């Protein structure tokens, strides 16, 4: 009897444990019931799913303090620790997860390319498939609104700013000399291969406090973190050849890439307006090494490039033309480490070194430039929650510039400067809800050269106006030291300044994006000098000023017509400047009032071909006609260019690529050059400045060899 009782007692203990009922109701913050939320006791089997009214109820044999977990897609997981007996009639509210795809994004001023961004305007492939870009990432960005068409230059001119006002960063570290030097009637290209990057962010204003020394714009390029597999890439082009190889190990990888370009055969076939003695030739080598550690990633990137040309260019003042010879060598190294420190802290440290040597011979003048620059950066990131994050750090820039000049009539002279600058920044990201976000930051810079301290506040705010649309505002102050061409002659100056005011509207439909942005830029303390060219004898001051205002529109649609993807950009720009040697405030010659780009890509499945087309229109640019009164008193005719390309996949590993820039052969005009002195009639003779070549043809064959024949050229399409 006693034993039976004991057994009974034991059994009772076992069954008695499944008595408690846990129940309640789950809603969102607006008291709407959530159906299908997963509700359970952490670490046990006990739990259920909420019904259509958000109600749940289940039994448990657990006792004491337990954690109730409520999880649902696109909401933050809720944890509630209480005694089991208190877990009934619960009223639970889930907060929306601000990491979800439909959360508001701070988008004022920013265009991103890549698949990791919620607001990507361009896809990674676009950089290489835009007809007019010819594989240059800068060329692809020139089809976006906010850029102006300065066809003979090729660099990025953003919203009434000069090309030097845009800074380029690789993995967050500054690139000091991003462009290949060219003759003054041939557009330059970005130095770096677009295939090394998997994320591009192009900001046309109002950017983060992390970035400084750029008055107008920043372009952020991120190198690929982990290559997919080992492979060899071979490219044979009408203008040269390239070879690349990627090797992978357990936790590290190395990619090397070399290319050689020689324009001599091309120029022999299609002569251009230059009288070449030695057409452009150049070679480059790039290597990226990546090492994964337990908690982080180390990347080492280095690039070496050389280029040279020798030619005679037509000039109105010299009937025999101007002899122009150039030699350039450029070395760039960039190393960075990104890692997690635990406890929601992460760290980033990076360093870059640039060595650039250029030798120019222009008629009797010999000019040799040497630049040694460094950039070091350290930053910390802390995530308090998904809704509140901070980012702060410090950086140091060193630029050491020297120029040697000689001429048969002047003794050799050399001069230069050191432009060292330290900076600190702090910024926080706050999500008040899924619909309202704020980014606020402050940047402080100290220039050793000017002994000047500057403070730049930055602020952006984004508000979601509907499920698919949002409005953003941005404001910021930006400082930049004058460029090398001024600093080499005069160092007793101050930093130049702009303030940006941006209002942005964005509508994201599936497969369709519309953006409209209005901006106003206020420039102060621009450099002025009192001679025709910046020189030793000029008097310099910081009294210049300018404004730029306008509207940028962008529309992309890859959905309406099957296999057709297209985008249209339009920019209206109104800008006047009083800087350099301007006698009055005037619209500079790199400003077009109207800019329009249309890019289309059409895929024909049966032909395994993509046909691309890009059209660009830009209204005329200003120039000074000395035969009339006034300064920058005339405008050139407008610029038009239509480019087409065809990419044909012979097999998954082989691609044939053909492209023609300015297929209609439109004779564009970049400006006019006038004689220094008038002729006997008091008339200044003129010469039309045209591009070196109206058209450009390109044929390339690219072949990827991977161990298993698996990787393919589809990526390069």
């Amino acid at each position, binding site marked *: 009897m006693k034993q039976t009782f004991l057994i009974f007692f034991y059994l009772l203990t076992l069954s008695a444990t499944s008595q408690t009922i846990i129940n309640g109701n789950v809603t969102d913050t607006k008291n709407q019931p959530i159906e299908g939320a997963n509700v359970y006791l952490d670490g046990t089997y006990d739990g259920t799913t909420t019904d259509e009214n958000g109600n749940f109820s289940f039994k448990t044999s657990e006792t004491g303090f337990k954690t109730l977990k409520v999880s649902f897609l696109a909401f933050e997981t809720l944890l509630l620790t209480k005694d089991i007996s208190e877990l009934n009639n619960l009223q639970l509210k889930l907060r929306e997860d601000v990491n*979800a795809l439909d959360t508001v994004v701070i988008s004022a001023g920013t265009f991103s390319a890549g698949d990791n961004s919620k607001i990507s305007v361009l896809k990674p492939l676009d950089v290489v498939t835009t007809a007019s870009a010819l594989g240059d990432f800068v060329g692809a960005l020139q089809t976006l609104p906010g850029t102006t068409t300065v066809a003979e230059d090729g660099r990025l001119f953003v919203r009434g700013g000069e090309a030097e006002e845009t800074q380029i960063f690789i993995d967050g570290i500054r690139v000091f000399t991003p462009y290949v030097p060219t003759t003054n009637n041939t557009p330059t290209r970005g130095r770096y291969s677009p295939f090394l990057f998997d994320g591009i962010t192009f900001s046309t204003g109002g950017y983060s406090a992390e970035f400084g020394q750029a008055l107008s714009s920043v372009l952020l390029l991120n190198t690929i973190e982990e290559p997919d*597999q080992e492979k060899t890439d071979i490219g044979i082009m009408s203008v040269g050849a390239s070879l690349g190889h990627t090797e992978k190990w357990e936790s590290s990888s190395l990619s090397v890439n070399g290319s050689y370009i020689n324009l001599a055969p091309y120029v022999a076939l299609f002569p251009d307006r230059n009288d070449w003695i030695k057409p452009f030739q150049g070679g480059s080598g790039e290597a990226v090494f990546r090492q994964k550690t337990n908690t982080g990633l180390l990347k080492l990137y280095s690039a070496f490039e050389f280029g040279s040309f020798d030619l005679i260019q037509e000039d109105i003042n010299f009937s025999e033309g101007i002899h122009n010879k150039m030699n350039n060598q450029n070395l760039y190294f960039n190393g960075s480490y990104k890692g997690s420190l635990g406890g929601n802290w992460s760290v980033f440290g990076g360093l870059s070194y640039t060595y650039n040597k250029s030798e120019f011979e222009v008629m009797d003048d010999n000019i040799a430039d040497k630049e040694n620059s460094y950039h070091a950066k350290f930053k910390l990131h802390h995530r308090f929650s998904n809704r509140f994050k901070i980012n702060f750090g410090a950086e140091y820039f060193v630029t050491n510039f020297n120029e040697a000049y000689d001429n048969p009539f002047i003794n050799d002279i050399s001069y230069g400067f050191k432009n060292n600058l330290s900076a600190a920044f702090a910024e926080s990201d706050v999500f008040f809800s899924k619909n309202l976000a704020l980014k606020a930051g402050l940047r402080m810079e100290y220039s050793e050269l000017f002994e000047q301290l500057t403070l730049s506040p930055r602020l952006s705010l984004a508000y979601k106006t509907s499920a698919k649309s949002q409005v953003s505002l941005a404001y910021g102050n930006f400082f930049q030291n004058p460029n090398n061409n001024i600093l080499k002659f005069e160092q007793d100056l101050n930093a130049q300044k702009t303030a940006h005011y941006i209002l942005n509207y964005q509508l994201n439909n599936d497969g369709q994006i519309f953006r409209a942005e209005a901006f106003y830029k206020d420039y102060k303390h621009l450099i002025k000098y009192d001679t025709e060219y910046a020189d030793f004898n000029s008097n310099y001051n910081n009294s210049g000023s300018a404004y730029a205002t306008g509207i940028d529109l962008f529309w992309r649609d890859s959905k309406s017509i099957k296999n057709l993807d297209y985008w249209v950009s339009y920019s209206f720009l109104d800008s006047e400047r009083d800087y350099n040697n301007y006698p009055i405030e005037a619209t500079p010659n790199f400003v077009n009032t109207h800019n329009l780009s249309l890019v289309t890509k059409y895929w024909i499945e049966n032909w395994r071909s993509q046909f691309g087309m890009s059209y660009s229109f830009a209204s005329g640019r200003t120039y000074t006609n000395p035969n009339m009164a006034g300064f920058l008193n005339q405008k050139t005719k407008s610029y038009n260019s239509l480019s087409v390309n065809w990419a044909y*996949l012979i097999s998954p590993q082989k691609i044939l690529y053909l492209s023609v820039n300015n297929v209609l052969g439109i004779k564009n005009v970049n400006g006019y050059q006038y004689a220094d002195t008038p002729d006997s009639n008091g008339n200044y003779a003129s010469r039309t400045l045209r591009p070196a070549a109206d058209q450009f043809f390109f044929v390339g064959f690219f072949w990827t060899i991977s161990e298993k024949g698996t990787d393919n050229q589809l990526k390069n399409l």
Partner: protein
Amino acid sequence: MTILKHFILIAAILFTANMQSQTQYEQGMQKAFDLWETNPIEASQLFERIANAEPDNWLPPYYAAETLILNGFTKLNDKSALEAQLNKAQNFLNDATAISKENPEIMVMQALLYTVYVASDGAKYGMTLSGKVMALYTKAEAIAPNNPRVVLNKADWEIGGARYFGQDTQPFCKDVERALELFATFKPESKFAPSWGKERAEEILKDCK
């Protein structure tokens, strides 16, 4: 009653309790598999609860991910819902990988997750993910060359690529046949270890002919 008897009784009860938890796992898993056919999302939630209760077993998070991934193929056009779902599936796969490293079954599942992204927007994800998918299959094949799911899914992916380029799919169809033979002799490691894929292989073979 002696102390020994007490001890035996307590041991027996503890054993029963342990048995109960064993069956609780089996019951839970069985219930989740049954639910899968009618309500994959609820099935995933049940796998999620089991994963929470069984922190050392890679199977519950693996299936919690699989339910979401396969369901993802049915909502390729609802971008934001799909991304939320795949993010959650990715978290489960990360949990499974943390429990069981270098596991070819998990690699196959990771490759399938990427395949959903590629299927939803080829232009956006094709460039970055195609290579990763192939690399995962290659790695899984090196570890388990005779795992029928590795052979099948790799071939399935390669057939897709070959069709796209208008190339011959026959060599890959042979792989599917081989996978089917491997399915015939395949013995799962445990009761709930992955054993799926045979029907898919038969379906693909039909298209091959």
